[in-house]
C-alpha cells in the first residue's frame, strides 16, 4: 500500500494524530534546548559526519580489525549476508546452548531481519524487554518509531493490553502503575532467561568492544543474568577508536530525547566468567547502499530518531504509514535502496523542507537524498497515468510565460467561482485530502505591473 493510503488510515483518528504531532514536536523541542547548551555543537556534528565518512571509506579494514580484537577478547564472531542467515546463526547459537527462553533489548536490526517470528516458529520464547517494544509485541504490531516504539499507542490502549496479557487491574491508563507491573513481569523473564540478545550502538575497531545505550537498563539486566549474550550489529556500526565514543555519545541522546546522555551506556568487551558472548555482523543490503555515491551517507545514521520527531509528514502520518522497519525521513532513503518498487512512494512522503537534515547529528543530507530518489523513481518505476499526463501538461505551461499567464487567470477564476466538488473531481487527486485556496482577482504579475505603473504616475 502507498504511504498516502496508509497515512489515510492513521488520519482517521484525528485526536490521536493531533496528540502524536504535538508529542513528537515536544521531543524535538527538548532536543533543541539540550543542543543549545553545548558549546561547539555544530563542530561536534561535523566530527560525527567526518568520523563516519572516514569509517565507511575504510570499512572492510575496520571490520577485520574489530573481528580480530573481539576474538582475542574471547568473543565469537559470526557474519551474515542477509536477514535469513542472521536468523539461522542466532538460532544455531541458541540451539547449541539449549536456550529456550530469550530476552531481547532494543535492536532495529533484529526487527529488520524478522528474528522474532523466526525464533517463535522454532519453539523459542522471545520477550522484548524495552517497555515500548514489549507493548507493541503484546499488540502484535511493529514499532512505529525507532526510539519511541509505542508512540502511536495511547495509555488506555496499553491499559487494555496489559489487562489482557499481564492480568493487571483496570487503571485508566496510569503510567506509573502500568510501568510498575511491566517491571515485575519483565523481572521474572530476566531471571529465567537462558540467553539475551541486544543490539549494538557502536562497535569499536581498536579494542573489539561494543556499546549499548538504554534508559531502562534492560540490555544490562538481560546480558548480565543469562549465560549467553548475542549482540547483533549492522556492518555500519563500526567506529575506529574508543575516543570517538566521546563524540557520538554526546550527539546521540541529545538528538534523540534531549537528555545529555542515556541513563545507561554499557561498554561490553569480554564475557563474564563461565558465560559466552557472540557478535553477529550483518550486511543485508548495506554493502549495496555503500556502492551508491548519492546515498551512501545514509549509512552514517546512528538511529537517534531526530529526523522523525521533526518531520511534518511523519508526525502527521505515523510510523506505520512507511510500512518499513525504519520509518520517517531516514527510512525513506534507506528503504528504496532495498526494494525500489515496494517503497517507491516513500521519497514523496516529504515536503523537502530540510528540517531532517538540519537536526541530523551526523549531518546526513536527508532531504537531498529524498529528492534524488524521486528522480530515479520517476524514471524507473511506472507513475500513475493522471500524474504523468498532468505533469507533462504542467511542464508545457511552465515553459511558456504567455500560456502560463492565460491559464493562471482561468485557474484563479475557477477557484473563485466553481464549486469545490468540481474542482476536486477525480483528475485532481491532490485535492482529495487538501483544500485549495480561494482564487485571487489579480495574479502576481498583474499586481506588480500595476504597482510599477502607479509608481510612475506618482513620479509624474
Amino acid at each position, binding site marked *: 500500500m502507498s504511504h498516502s493510503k496508509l497515512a489515510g488510515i492513521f488520519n482517521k483518528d484525528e485526536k490521536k494524530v493531533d496528540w502524536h504531532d504535538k508529542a513528537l514536536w515536544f521531543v524535538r523541542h527538548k532536543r533543541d534546548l539540550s543542543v543549545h547548551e553545548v558549546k561547539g555543537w555544530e563542530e561536534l556534528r561535523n566530527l560525527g559526519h567526518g568520523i563516519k565518512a572516514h569509517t565507511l571509506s575504510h570499512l572492510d579494514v575496520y571490520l577485520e580489525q574489530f573481528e580480530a580484537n573481539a576474538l582475542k577478547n574471547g568473543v565469537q564472531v559470526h557474519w551474515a549476508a542477509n536477514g535469513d542467515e542472521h536468523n539461522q546463526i542466532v538460532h544455531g547459537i541458541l540451539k547449541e546452548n539449549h536456550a529456550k527462553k530469550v530476552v531481547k533489548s532494543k535492536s532495529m536490526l533484529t526487527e529488520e531481519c524478522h528474528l522474532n517470528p523466526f525464533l517463535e516458529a522454532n519453539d523459542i520464547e522471545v520477550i522484548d*524487554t524495552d517497555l515500548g517494544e514489549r507493548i507493541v509485541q503484546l499488540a502484535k504490531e511493529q514499532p512505529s518509531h525507532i526510539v519511541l*516504539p509505542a508512540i502511536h499507542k495511547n495509555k488506555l490502549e496499553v491499559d487494555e493490553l496489559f489487562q489482557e496479557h499481564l492480568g493487571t487491574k483496570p487503571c485508566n491508563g496510569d503510567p506509573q502503575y502500568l510501568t510498575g507491573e511491566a517491571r515485575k513481569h519483565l523481572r521474572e523473564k530476566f531471571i529465567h532467561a537462558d540467553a539475551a540478545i541486544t543490539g549494538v550502538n557502536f562497535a569499536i575497531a581498536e579494542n573489539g568492544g561494543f556499546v549499548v545505550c538504554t534508559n531502562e537498563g534492560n540490555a544490562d539486566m538481560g546480558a548480565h543474568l543469562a549465560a549467553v549474550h548475542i549482540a547483533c550489529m549492522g556492518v555500519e556500526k563500526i567506529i575506529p577508536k574508543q575516543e570517538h565514543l566521546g563524540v557520538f555519545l554526546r550527539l546521540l541522546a541529545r538528538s534523540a530525547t534531549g537528555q545529555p*546522555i542515556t541513563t*545507561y551506556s554499557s561498554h561490553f*568487551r569480554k564475557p*563474564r566468567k563461565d558465560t559466552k558472548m557472540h557478535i553477529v555482523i550483518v550486511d543485508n543490503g548495506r554493502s549495496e547502499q555503500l556502492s551508491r555515491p548519492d546515498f551512501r551517507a545514509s549509512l552514517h545514521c546512528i538511529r537517534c530518531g531526530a529526523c522523525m520527531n521533526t518531520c511534518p509528514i511523519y508526525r502527521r502520518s505515523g510510523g506505520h504509514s512507511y510500512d518499513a522497519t525504519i520509518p520517517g525521513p531516514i527510512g525513506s532513503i534507506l528503504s528504496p535502496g532495498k526494494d525500489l518498487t515496494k517503497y517507491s512512494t516513500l521519497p514523496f512522503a516529504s515536503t523537502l523542507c530540510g528540517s531532517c537534515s538540519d537536526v541530523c547529528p551526523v549531518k546526513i543530507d536527508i532531504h537531498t537524498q529524498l529528492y534524488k530518489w524521486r528522480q530515479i523513481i520517476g524514471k524507473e518505476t511506472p507513475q500513475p497515468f493522471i500524474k504523468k499526463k498532468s505533469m507533462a501538461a504542467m511542464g508545457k505551461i511552465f515553459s511558456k510565460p504567455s500560456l502560463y499567464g492565460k491559464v493562471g487567470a482561468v485557474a484563479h477564476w475557477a477557484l473563485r467561482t466553481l464549486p469545490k466538488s468540481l474542482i476536486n473531481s477525480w483528475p485532481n487527486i491532490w485535492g482529495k485530502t487538501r483544500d485549495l485556496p480561494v482564487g485571487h482577482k489579480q495574479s502576481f504579475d498583474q499586481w506588480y505591473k500595476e504597482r510599477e505603473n502607479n509608481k510612475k504616475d506618482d513620479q509624474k
Partner: protein
Amino acid sequence: MDSRDTILKKLKANKPEFIALPKINLDIFDENIDMVKEFIRKVEVAGGKVFEVTDNKEVLSKTQEAFPDTKVNFTNLDDSGFFNTIDYETLKNPHKLNDLDVLVLESTLGVAENGAVWLTDNDIPVRVIPFITKHLVLVLPKENIVPYMHQAYNALDPEVLDYGIFISGPSKTADIEQSLVIGAQGAMSMTVFLV
C-alpha cells in the same frame, strides 16, 4: 566463499575513495565550567540526588538515614561490616539478588556535562547488581570529575576494559504516552556522594 569473505569483498569493492579521519580539537568545546556544580545539576536533571560529604563513614550513615527500613544491603567500601547484610559469596549467585535493596559502590570517574558516573568490573563485584538493586548509591571523589565525555575517554585505557558503564540517574521510561516514570527495569533511585 563464506559470508564473511563475501561481505568484506563487497565492502572493499563498494567503498568510496579514502577519506581522512578528522582530528578532535577539544578547545572548541571548552567553556571553563564549574565542574562540581555542573555535575550536581546534571545528576539532578537525570532524576538522581547528590550529597557532598567528608568521608566514607558519612556515606554509610547518610545512606542508612535515607533508606532506614531496608533488609538487604551491600557495599564494598572498607570497614563496612555493619552495613552489609549479605556477603560476597551470596552475590555470586545473582539470580538470588532480586531482593537487594541498597547497593553502595565506589566510582573513579564522573562527567560534568551529563552527570554520568563510570563503573567497571573493578568496582562491581557482579555485573548485574547496579541494575538489579532497588537503590543505587555511588561514591565519587570530587577531583575525579572531568568536564566532557572526551576527557572521560582520554582517562580510560581501551585495552584494559572488560566491561564498563556510564550511569546517569535512575532507570526510567516514557514509553506510555510520553509520561516519565522513574524505575523501569533497573534501579529505582540513584544517589551520588561526592567526597
